[in-house]
């Protein structure tokens, strides 16, 4: 059983519309995997399944060895998530937002204080702990959400288009940071995006298009002589469903 993220033969449909058909890939422990797909490729549906928002009878999802359908709570305990839509309490302080999340995982008191301090420190946000989230810029809000997703020490981190709407420098800094988490701390990362410049040659790359996996492998090998952008375009050609 792999310690990382396993998606096997996952299919899902909204009524008659097939959103995912026989999707499967493995992300080994400590790897950064970019899930690249144009809008409407099925990324959000896959995230809904990966985060236990809904389940599908066809296929298997295992988070650090825990089956999402059979033992969803163990799977969720091993999972950190940064959603595409910000899920923060704007009028509360950074620290209060983190404290709330820690408590949802049963962590409080001194342990919570320590983890919050560490997580904010790691993201360079320590001095903003007392600020209201509404006073933060987009980049700092995202950092806060990443710090929050790491509070309970997950084995796997899922990020759904985490850099959308951020400026280039902030995007790069966040991308670098998450790469470092994978290589230095053994965190397994699934990073959904439609921005090709966030993918590095030594990343694991899964290209999703119209609900099916179009390419799966090391990004450098997938692109070959082409740029990632060209490779992505040629893999996702054809009309949208």
């Amino acid at each position, binding site marked *: 059983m792999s310690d990382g993220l396993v998606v096997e033969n996952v299919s899902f449909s*909204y009524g008659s519309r097939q959103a995912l058909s026989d999707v499967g890939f493995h992300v080994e422990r400590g790897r950064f995997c970019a899930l690249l797909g144009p809008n409407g490729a099925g990324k959000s549906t896959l995230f809904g399944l990966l*985060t236990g928002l809904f389940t599908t009878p066809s296929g298997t999802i295992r988070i650090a060895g825990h089956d999402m359908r059979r033992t969803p709570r163990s799977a969720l305990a091993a*999972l950190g998530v940064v959603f595409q839509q910000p899920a923060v*309490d704007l009028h509360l302080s950074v620290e209060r937002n983190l404290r*709330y999340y820690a408590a949802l995982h*049963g962590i409080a008191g001194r342990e919570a204080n320590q983890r919050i301090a560490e997580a904010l420190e790691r993201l360079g946000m320590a001095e903003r702990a007392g600020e209201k989230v509404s006073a933060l810029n987009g980049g700092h809000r995202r950092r806060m959400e990443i710090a929050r997703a790491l509070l309970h020490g997950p084995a796997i981190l899922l990020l759904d288009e985490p850099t959308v709407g951020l400026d280039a420098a902030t995007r790069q800094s966040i991308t670098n940071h998450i790469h470092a988490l994978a290589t230095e701390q053994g965190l397994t990362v699934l990073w959904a995006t439609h921005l090709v410049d966030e993918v590095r040659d030594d990343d694991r790359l899964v290209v999703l298009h119209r609900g099916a996996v179009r390419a799966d492998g090391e990004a450098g090998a997938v692109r070959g002589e082409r740029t990632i952008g060209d490779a992505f375009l040629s893999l996702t050609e054809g009309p949208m469903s």
Partner: protein
Amino acid sequence: MTPQRAGISFREFAICMMAIVNREALRFVGQRSRFLSSLVRPMVWLIVFAAGFRAALGLSIQEPYDTYITYETYIVPGLIGMVQLFNGMQSSLGLVYDREMGSMRLLLTSPMPRWWLLFSKLLAGTAISIVQVYAFLALAALFDIRFSPLGYLAILPVLVLSGLMLGALGLMLSSTIDQLENFAGIMNFVIFPMFFLSTALYPLWKMAEASPILRDICALNPFSHAVEAIRFALHLDINWASLGWTGMAFAVFFAISLIGYDPAKGSMVRKAR
């Protein structure tokens, strides 16, 4: 990395619930207009509506009252119910709107059992509704509408039950209904019918004079039973039948909510699209 634990301790359950209640309380404190309107609404009914109706509507002696009462006294339990009804709809239906959808998704990534998360959410809403109720009663007392001091205490456990029931109603609607996209829809199709077709404004016998069918609807309406349970408690009496009805309605609404928020069922799929 933390080792993955199979079981969740009692302490962790408690931490999670307290955090959910605390967050709701902090949000409520931040929304002054919500608090203000939760007070103004029943006060307008009490001061304006009841004053006008006092002359038009004579009330006979009926349980739990042992003497003639003013109309203002009669409608206070109904207005308490109204405060809780509005609050239940606001806190639960907030979940459906985009603004709160993110926080609901975040809540559901917690490894705690889902029924516990949703129950904590309901308890949080109930706690806030109780603060609103006591603020309303304090304001009513300023207008000389007072009850026995013990009555104020006796309604507390009933308010917990009625608050949970009305919150669960909102939660059930939020998990099953997609069409009600704004609060106006909820006002027209849930709050108004529940409020007007209940014993909040008129006793059952008065309704029966108008129409036996209306009376039967009022008698079946769980909101009527919440109001009657509050009314009896406020007069240091217990209406077991109404308490039982309210408890049963809570169980049914909450059970349907749990099915609605079950990841293997359809409703969360619709919300994620």
